[in-house]
């Protein structure tokens, strides 16, 4: 999309009108969760946070793929970084994510581990061809947005006869996590700003349960200020009339049924499994694992990796933050024991992390 067109979704005059409308119609507090970390960052980056009425309470949800990566998953890829056979391929986001003993991939790289930051999973094909004596292991972290591309990479690798590529599959799916959050009575929410990128793949149908089962509203939303303000106004309007809906406010990117081709590729290679979410725990059916037909690419099988739950890090409140129970700066470690330079958890280092966004952008 051209920048000229995008600029229209940042029009200050229209934003002011929507903010005025919101102030006029907002009778009491609206607690909404922006599921996706990119929304959290967009709300801060655009300056919207300082302009929204105080009655709008925004909570960051479990929509940052790095933040929800479980401690044992982080430790698993950090362990692999010490393996002499392995070249780890990863998106840049994971380089500073801390594991047990605050080790991370940056430090592992300094210790001699072979790690390559890639911009696309397809880059791993070239990497594998150029390093026939090594095993290239791609760290598959992310939601429905990234999983189809990784599935496509595996299909391409099979077609090209590449035998030294593996995927460490920690993919998770968004709707199942939202279902788990809504069934938790400790969580007090009025509605969701639904993720734009994930929805471009899965469409809006998988979210229908939010209105049908829980009577809450949710709007698939783009990342520009007008997108966000329009979705908030919609949710205020529905609440004032006692309605609950799931709507698509990002029609320029998201089709009603998503991207069926991408879904087909994704489920050809992966199948649903139970998954551990950092700070939240086990959510049945919320993960993706490599199907047996594709096990030649499965790094978990190759290295016998088993993901197990364990006690949460002492003092770290990322579970409460990812569930919208606490704000990042309510964590006792925030800005003290946990900073971007020396993070305790991934929420403080991920570019989409809510703690990182608060630390980086919050003025007061």
């Amino acid at each position, binding site marked *: 999309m051209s*920048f000229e067109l995008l600029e229209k979704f940042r029009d200050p005059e229209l934003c002011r009108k929507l903010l005025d409308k919101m102030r006029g119609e907002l009778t009491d507090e609206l607690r909404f969760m922006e599921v996706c970390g990119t929304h959290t960052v967009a709300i801060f980056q655009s300056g919207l946070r300082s302009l929204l009425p105080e009655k709008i309470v925004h909570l960051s949800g479990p929509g940052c793929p790095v933040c929800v990566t479980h401690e044992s998953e982080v430790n698993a890829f950090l362990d692999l970084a010490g393996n002499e056979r392995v070249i780890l391929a990863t998106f840049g986001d994971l380089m500073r994510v801390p594991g047990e003993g605050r080790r991370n991939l940056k430090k592992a790289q300094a210790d001699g581990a072979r790690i390559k930051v890639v911009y696309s999973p397809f880059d791993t094909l070239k990497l594998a061809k150029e390093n026939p004596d090594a095993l290239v292991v791609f760290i598959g972290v992310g939601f429905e947005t990234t999983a189809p591309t990784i599935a496509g990479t595996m299909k391409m690798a099979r077609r090209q006869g590449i035998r030294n590529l593996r995927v460490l599959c920690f993919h998770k799916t968004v709707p199942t996590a939202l279902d788990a959050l809504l069934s938790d009575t400790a969580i007090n929410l009025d509605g969701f700003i639904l993720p734009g990128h994930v929805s471009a793949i899965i469409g809006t149908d998988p979210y229908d349960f939010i209105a049908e089962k829980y009577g809450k509203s949710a709007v698939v939303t783009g990342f520009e200020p007008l997108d966000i303000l329009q979705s908030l106004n919609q949710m205020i309007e529905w609440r004032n009339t006692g309605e609950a809906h799931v709507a698509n406010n990002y029609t320029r990117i998201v089709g009603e049924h998503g991207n069926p081709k991408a879904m087909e590729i994704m489920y050809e290679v992966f199948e649903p499994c139970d998954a551990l979410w950092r700070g939240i725990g086990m959510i049945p059916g919320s993960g993706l694992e490599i199907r047996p037909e594709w096990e030649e690419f499965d790094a978990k099988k190759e290295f016998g990796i088993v993901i197990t739950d364990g006690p949460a890090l002492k003092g770290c409140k990322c579970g409460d933050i990812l569930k919208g129970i606490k704000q990042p700066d309510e964590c006792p470690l925030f800005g003290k024991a946990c900073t971007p330079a020396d993070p305790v958890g991934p929420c403080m280092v991920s*570019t*989409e992390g809510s703690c990182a966004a608060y630390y980086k952008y919050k*003025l007061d």
Partner: protein
Amino acid sequence: MSEKVLLDYGSGGRASQRLISQLFLGNLGNDELNRLNDAAELAVSGRVAMSTDSFTVDPIFFPGGNIGSLAVHGTVNDVAMMGAIPKYMTCAYIIEEGLPMDDLEVIVKSMAEAVEHAGVLIVSGDTKVVPKGAVDKIFINTTGIGDIIVDPAPSGDSARSGDAVLISGTIGDHGLTILGTREGLDFEAEVKSDSAALNHLLVRLVQELPEVHVLRDPTRGGLATTLNEITTSSNVCCELNENALPIRPEVKGGCSILGLDPLYLANEGKFICILPEAHAEQALEIMRADPLGQDACRIGTMTDANPGKVVLVTGLGGKRLLGMLEGEQLPRIC
């Protein structure tokens, strides 16, 4: 000459002599350097600005320049930011065995063009060749000195509340070019480094406007990090106007794809100028009269609202913190 740089060329023997006399003196030679003494004899007196920098850029060739021209521009600019006229430079090459001789020649020739344009003499140098793998292709260290012509010299701790904040042109061009070339990324529109020697423009600026408080080139860490350094040193707040920030659409586009922020990308041919409000317009006129400053504009104001912080006033009129970069920028997942 053979096709590759061999360890012999760093031996100090005949091979070294040939490399020095043919390649280095042939391109960079001048009366002082040609004497090949252990040290240069210079006429230096009064207040002098001196700066050193090592250049380890990967890739060594990029659209808009190469490590040779960059090594000159970087040091010339650092000296000039002190309100000084850069005069002399030293230059030390550390070359990896096996570097194609043609590449080295291109680098040295480009360095020669850059010093000629900047009006600076290289008066002392050194060449080392190290075994393959000991360095990545080639590293260059340059040191520069120059006469300071204003008193007091511009300094990062001299910004005052009420000062205007100016930038000499578009930001992020160099950083995105380097990253894009390193990763072999094809951007739809061409991006190229802004690497350039700014000394002639800077000298004119401080000669006409000695009231300039701060001059800084926003290299590594970009505009945001450099402004944070200045606000911390001066204990003032910088309010930046997002709508005024000059960023090329192709840089915006490239950053958007990679999840990078142009405000944290390195620049090699731009400078920040902070000076009293009353002189802002005149400073912009001087800058815009030079091709290297034609896109100069005002981007903000120093205030006493949040001492030590940089605050971005967004296009919507909201405010947010613009902090210092932590580590290097990394591309995101989605």
